[in-house]
């Protein structure tokens, strides 16, 4: 069953000129993207900013982007009952999967492997259990272990198998790509625009990916609550935040489940990851949100080109990196 709330609250917003003016104390820059598209992708708000582009070129590009998003949702989205992913979830076997579903699941499984299961694309039954529980009794506390246990038993990424021309999942398993699908779509859309010669763009489908800085060389500025903004020139930023999508009265639970306990993870307030690929950044931010500081250090030893920032519940900032890191910086406080 798809989640009830398709849009997830934005922890991060983009500095367009208007937003810059609204930021308390923020410098009012002429950082205006010349053309902006707003739509919906993978059930979330989507924005693409085109810097210094002819309206005609932007329109042509957008027609292409909308078709591409539509196509990818047909493969990866849980909000479409006829998507390949939903068909896989219904029967446990999908024949002739598209290359995009295969690649997205391949990326998901590789992050699961790297993170020792902190990230797991098979957590969908947990989500469904929580949603059912809170739908039935909105004011109740967290569901008891007896409810959680059967769902948790179905969570195991190792049971997913990518076979020649088929994808198979274990009994009672259901997959979600909400932990990296938006990132995956972001990557494909950004690279598609690049093939059209459009580089000065920022694709923001929940994760922000830039192919190049703006035409004047200035970075894209990505703001976040209560901390210095990021300056993004290349690659993607993804943020996981428990408060992004809360369940139950008073926020008893949220969507980022620890697959090992079946409970919403609570170590960090917020984790932001930068990587060349939005899909990787997206999945890693979920994985790191669930992991402990020691685990995060271990995970980062297995990947390259990653920088991660975390804020704990005492509002302390943490930062780890696995070089080479390129394309992102924190803006110095002015």
């Amino acid at each position, binding site marked *: 069953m798809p989640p009830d709330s398709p849009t997830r609250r934005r922890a991060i917003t983009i500095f367009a000129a208007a937003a810059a003016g609204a930021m308390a104390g923020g410098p009012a820059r002429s950082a205006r993207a010349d053309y902006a598209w707003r739509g919906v992708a993978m059930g979330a708000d989507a924005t693409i900013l085109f810097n210094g582009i002819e309206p005609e070129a932007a329109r042509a590009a957008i027609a292409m982007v909308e078709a591409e998003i539509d196509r990818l949702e*047909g493969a990866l989205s849980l909000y479409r009952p006829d998507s390949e992913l939903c068909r896989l979830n219904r029967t446990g076997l999908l024949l002739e999967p*598209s*290359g995009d579903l295969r690649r997205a699941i391949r*990326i998901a499984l*590789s992050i699961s492997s790297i993170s020792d299961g902190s990230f797991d694309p098979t957590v969908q039954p947990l989500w469904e259990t929580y949603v059912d529980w809170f739908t039935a009794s909105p004011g109740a506390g967290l569901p008891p272990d007896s409810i959680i246990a059967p769902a948790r038993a179905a969570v195991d990424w190792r049971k997913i198998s990518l076979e020649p*021309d088929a994808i198979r999942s274990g009994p009672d398993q259901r997959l979600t790509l909400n932990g990296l699908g938006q990132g*995956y779509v972001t990557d494909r859309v950004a*690279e598609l625009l690049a093939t059209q010669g459009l580089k000065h763009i920022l694709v923001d489908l929940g994760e922000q990916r830039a192919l190049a800085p703006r035409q004047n060389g200035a970075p894209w500025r990505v703001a976040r609550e209560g901390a210095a903004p990021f300056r993004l020139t290349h690659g993607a930023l993804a943020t996981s935040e428990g408060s992004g999508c809360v369940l139950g009265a008073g926020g008893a639970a949220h969507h980022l489940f620890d697959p090992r306990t079946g409970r919403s993870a609570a170590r960090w307030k917020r984790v932001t990851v930068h990587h060349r690929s939005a899909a990787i950044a997206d999945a890693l931010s979920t994985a790191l949100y669930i992991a402990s500081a020691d685990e995060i250090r271990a995970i980062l030893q297995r990947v390259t080109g990653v920088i991660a920032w975390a804020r704990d519940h005492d509002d302390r900032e943490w930062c780890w990196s696995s070089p080479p890191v390129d394309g992102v910086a924190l803006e110095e406080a002015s």
Partner: protein
Amino acid sequence: MLTAGAAQAADLTIASQFFSSNGPVTVELPQGSPPSAIVRASDGHILGYAFSTLDVSGSVGYAGRPLDIVAAVTPEGIVAGARIVAHEEPILVIGIPRDALAAYVAGFGGFDIRAGAALKPADDLARGPHAVAGATITSTVIRDAIVRSSRAVLRSRDNAPDGTVRLDRETLRRSSWQSLVAEGAVQHRLVLRAEASKLLGTQDNEPDKPFIDLWLALATPPPIGESLLGQRIYESELAKIGPDDDLVLIGASGLYSFKGTEWRQSGSFERFEIVQGNRTIRLKAADYTPVEALHAAGAPELREIAVFRIPRSSGFDSTKPFRLDVDLGTPAQAAGPAVVTLDYRIPDRYLIGPAEVQPSPDRAAASAASTQPPLWQEIWWARRYEIAVLGAMLTVLAGILVFQDTVTAHGVFYFRLRTFYMLLTLFFLGFFANAQLSVVNVLTFVHALLSGFRWELFLLDPMVFTLWSFVAVSMLFWGRGVFCGWLCPFGTLQELTNHLAQRLGIKQIEIPFGLHERLWMIKYVVFVGILALSLRSILLAFQLAEVEPFKTAITMKFAREWPFVLYAGLLVFAGLFIERFYCRYLCPLGAALAIPARMRMFEWLKRYRECGSECQVCARRCTVQAIHPLGQINPNECIYCLKCQANYFDHEVCLHLKKRAQRRQPLPAARPTNSNAPRA
């Protein structure tokens, strides 16, 4: 934002005048790609679309300079009106009255674009207004600009349901690999190992080598499919598909195989997909035929080549853009989607526009008739008879030059042949075919070399193109004189009129050689001046090129404003007293040819050792006084008329031969020597 895009665009509102008979109309802002503005009647219905040819098709004139015509076309494909708004065409700037040009352009009103689309090699090349006399190339360009732009606008505006644009599956034509690649019928993407390793998150120690070198083509249209696959495979593949299905050819070389091996087991290809809009089309082993090698001339050798049959039922529409997604394989570690894409759009020439002439029973003929070969091919076909005559003329001339000793040894035959040839040059090449080469051609050529050479521009005039090709070769062999003496209509006009004058007893003026030699310099100065000026302003250079009376005398047959006529007339008049007066001292084209002609290979003009010392007959008789009093022929000035050669063999004229005959009365004539042949 709209205004930003249309900043340099012409003002389309003048298009409202084209529809003035429909009462008040409004011209909206230009939109779409290509940009065009909707013209609406007062009741709101669409009367047509206005556009600028420069915006739509980047129209250029003969000199490669912008040419902008604002025109409007009705939804039915009728040109509502056209007006030239900007234009730097030098050939038109001078000589063609503005009114005549405006009338010519306005004459496109009522021209049926779609009937024009049915053009086929035929004599009715221009069903619309034909060309403006004396400015053939540009006027064909004008026609092309209006017709092509109208079609492009109509195509973009035609949002009728499917079937308005079809793929041309009938027209047969063979194309080379290079031309298929050049027109975009074959698309290419090279993925280096550096790029692949970045996408796959791996290291590569040979980053500059190809990971995969991909080629993609829609093989359905015969010119693409048959050229690439060869007739046998193409036809066997066609036999396997339905009338609306398509063939796609994918080829690759490099480290990575796009086919992989999984398909043998699973029955479908995993490494690549065809993507069109929101559709993903996966390809099955059953739809696949391996191909050994590409058939087209010049095609590279590829490691794997495959043809895939794509059924229309898959939703694939070959008239629309699509792309190939190739998965680069499993990333070594956390890396994003490792996919490369290759975009494809079938070039417009393989599409057939809205088919309202559909109910023709003979489908093949109908669709063949509605495709359009490149403009220059139409022109060549339409002028094929003139080209054939020119070809024959050039063949004869080549014969004269190669067998010049034999020809000139028969004096009477030579003089008659030459007179006949000159008449042909003057009346056929000059007055009939307007094939008068000009220094303007030289400038255009130099500027084309400077700003990006395009064969198409020169192919637009087949006569001039053929002539120049011949002149280039003859110049290399014998010098610049072959053109000047035999193929220049104005030159022959002067020579013929001078002969007439001599017959009528007009006394010729002899210019002392010392002065004569110095007057030669004028033409070089004129040429260098024109060339130098052209670098600053080609327009001014073309105006200065009016030093040439060619256009007035030959192309426009003296039907021009009086100052031009007076000038050309004076030159011809001067030519009555001094043979080829203009050629000798003024002609910048002669100068332009003389300079590169210093590279010539052959010195075939014969002289006796005694020439110049004992006798000056040839020098005095020389058409352009190119023979030095000391006997040498100056090849820079020589027009290769061969008169001196006829004299050389003429026992009545040549003093040397006469003397020898007297000396050795009883003996047969000795072998002439050419040890005194001129050296440059």
